[in-house]
C-alpha cells in the first residue's frame, strides 16, 4: 500500500503537472497561431470599453445573471471558492504576505469554502440530470464534475477534520513539508502524511486532483483560459 501511496503522491503529481502545464501551453499556442477571422464577430449595440466589457463578461457572467440567476449564484460561489482554494494551496508552499492582507489560518474560510464548493458541484451535476441539460450533456460533462467533486470532497474532509473535529494527527505543517519537498524536487513523505488514519483522504485527494489536472488541457475546462478571448470576439 505504501508503494501505491508513493506513486500517487510523488511521481503521479509530477506527471500531472507536466501534462497540465505542457498540454495547456501547447494547446494555447496552437490555438492562438491559427489565422484570425477575416471579419468582425461583434454583437451590437456596444457601449463603453470593449476590453472592460469582455472582462466583465468573463468574470461577472452578466448573461447568466440575467437569464438564470440561480445558476449565476452557484457559478459565482463555485469560481470564487475555487480561487480561494488555489490561494490556500499556494500558501502551503510558502508565506505570501499579499494573501495575509486579511489575516487567516490556512486554509481560508474555516472549512466552509470547501463545503460551498461541494454544494455548487452537486448543483451543477444534478442539473445535468434534468432535461434539456441532460440532452445537451456528454459523458465528459459528468466525469469532470464527479472528478472535481471527489477532489474537493476528500481535500475538504481533511480540513473539516482539523477545523471542526480537532483531528490533529495531520497538520498544515505536514502538508507544507510534503509540498515543499515536492516543489524543491527532493520529495519526502512525512509519516503523518502516509501513516495517519486520514492519509487515505490525502492520497485520494491528490489522486483525483492529478487526474483532473491531466484531463484539463483536453477538455472543455480550457474555457478557464479561453473565456476572455472568446468574449472579446463578441465585444469586437
Amino acid at each position: 500500500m505504501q508503494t501505491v501511496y508513493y506513486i500517487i503522491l510523488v511521481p503521479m503529481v509530477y506527471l500531472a503537472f507536466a501534462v497540465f502545464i505542457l498540454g495547456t501551453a501547447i494547446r494555447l499556442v496552437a490555438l492562438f497561431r491559427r489565422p484570425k477571422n477575416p471579419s468582425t464577430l461583434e454583437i451590437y449595440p456596444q457601449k463603453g470599453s470593449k476590453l472592460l466589457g469582455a472582462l466583465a463578461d468573463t468574470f461577472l457572467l452578466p448573461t447568466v445573471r440575467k437569464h438564470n440567476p440561480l445558476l449565476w449564484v452557484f457559478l459565482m460561489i463555485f469560481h470564487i471558492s475555487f480561487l480561494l482554494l488555489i490561494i490556500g494551496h499556494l500558501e502551503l508552499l510558502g508565506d505570501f504576505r499579499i494573501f495575509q492582507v486579511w489575516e487567516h489560518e490556512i486554509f481560508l474560510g474555516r472549512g466552509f469554502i470547501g463545503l460551498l464548493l461541494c454544494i455548487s458541484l452537486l448543483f451543477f451535476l444534478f442539473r445535468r440530470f434534468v432535461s434539456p441539460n441532460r440532452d445537451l450533456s456528454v459523458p465528459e460533462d459528468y466525469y469532470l464534475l464527479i472528478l472535481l467533486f471527489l477532489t474537493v470532497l476528500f481535500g475538504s474532509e481533511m480540513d473539516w477534520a482539523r477545523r471542526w473535529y480537532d483531528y490533529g494527527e495531520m497538520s498544515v505543517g505536514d502538508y507544507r513539508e510534503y509540498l515543499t519537498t515536492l516543489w524543491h524536487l527532493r520529495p519526502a513523505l512525512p509519516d503523518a502524511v502516509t501513516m495517519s488514519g486520514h492519509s487515505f483522504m490525502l492520497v485520494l485527494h491528490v489522486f483525483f486532483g492529478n487526474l483532473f489536472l491531466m484531463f484539463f488541457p483536453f477538455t472543455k475546462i480550457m474555457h478557464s483560459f479561453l473565456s476572455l478571448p472568446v468574449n472579446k470576439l463578441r465585444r469586437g
Partner: protein
Amino acid sequence: MDQNTRDELLKLFQGKLNRAMRFYLETCSRCGLCTKACHVHESMPHVKYIAAYRAEIVRRIYKKYFKGQGKAWSSVGESKELTEMALEELYEAAYSCTGCRRCMVYCPFGIDTQMIMSIAKLLLVGAKQEPEILTMLADTSIEKGKSLDVFKEGFLQGIKSLEQKVVEKWKGEADATPIPIDVEGADLLYVALAGAHSIIPAAAIFNAAGEHWTLSFFEAVNFGAFVGDPTKTKLIMNRIIDEAKRLRVKEVCICECGTAFRVMKQLSGKQPFKVVSITELHARYLREGRIHLDKNRFKGSITYHDPCQIARNAGIIDEPRYILQQLTDDFRDMSPDPKYNWCCGGGGGLVALGEETLDFRMKSSSVKADQVRETGAKILATACENCHAQLSDLNDHYKMGVDVQFLSSLVADALVHA
C-alpha cells in the same frame, strides 16, 4: 460515404478552423443557457433546436477528426464519424438555424452558432447535398458578373420602364435622369435587389436629396452566403466591388437586404469606398435636412422589426428609429433592448427556399407573431427583403392584421418639399 469523399469534406472542415472557430468549438460548457435564445426552440420546444445542440452536431465531428480526445477516448465527448447520417443531421441543424445570432447574447462565452453552422453548410456544399435552388441562384449571380453584356440591354430596358414611376413619387430636375446607370465619378453606387420595389422608392429619395448617384447593374443579394459557400460569396461580392472601383464612387449603398449589407460591410475589406446601408443614408439625409417627411402621412401606430443582420449583427439600430420619429408620433418599439429582438424566422436562406420551408417558417416563428401583436401597431416596418417576405407570410398565417412595409417605402411615400 467512401473514404475519398470523407477526406475531401474533412479538408473543407479544416479550412474553416481559424482561431475564432477553434475557440468556439473548444469552449462550450453545454450549460444550456442558450435554450431560451432561439426563436425556433421557443416556438417548437425540441432539444434539436437548442443552439448548443446544433453546434454540438458539428463539434462531435470536430472532436473525432481534429482533437486528440476524440481519437484517444471517443466516447467521453461522444465524438462522431462523418457519415451520410451525420450529413443529414448537419442539414437539419444548418437549415433550421436562421443565423440570427440571438444565442450569442445569451451565451456566457458569446459562442457564434451561425459561424459553427457555416461548417455544416460548407460540408453540405462539398457533399452536393445543399439546397439546390440556393446554389443555382448563386451561380446565376456569378454568371451575370462574368457576362454582363448579355444581360445589360435587357436590364437597361427594364429600368427605363420604371422611370415614370420614380417621377410620380418625386419630380426632380427637368433634365435629370430619374434612374442614372453607369455614371463614372458618381458619389454613390446604389445596389438594389431584382424588383421595382427595391429601386423606385430608393431612386425617388436619392433624387429628393439631390444625391449624385448611380444604380448598380448587379443585385445586392448574396446567395453564396445563404448556401454557405465562401468562394461563391466572394465572387458575388467582387462583382460589386469591381463596379464601384470602375465608377470611382465614394460610397456603396446596399438596399434593404440584411445579408447583402453584412457581407459587403464586413467581408469586403479595405476599399477606396465606404459601405453604407440605405437606412443609414436616409437617416443622414434627414439629419442634414436634405429630405423632409410628412409626419401625418400614415395613420396609426408603427412598429419596427430590426433585421438581425442589420441591427444585432451590424449595428444599424438608432438610424431606423430616428427615421421613424420623423414619420410618426406613435412609434412602438418591439423589444426594450434591440439585441433581444426575435428573428423573423426567414433568414439563413429559408425564405429563398420558398414553399419548401413555409410550414417550418410559420411554426418556428410563433414567438415573432406574438411579439408583433403585443405592440398593437397598425404598420409593421422593416428594412430587409427576407424579413419583409417572412413577416408578410406570418401576417397572413397568424392573421396579425398589420400592414407590412419596407422602411424605405414609407420614407418615399412621405416625401415632401421643405
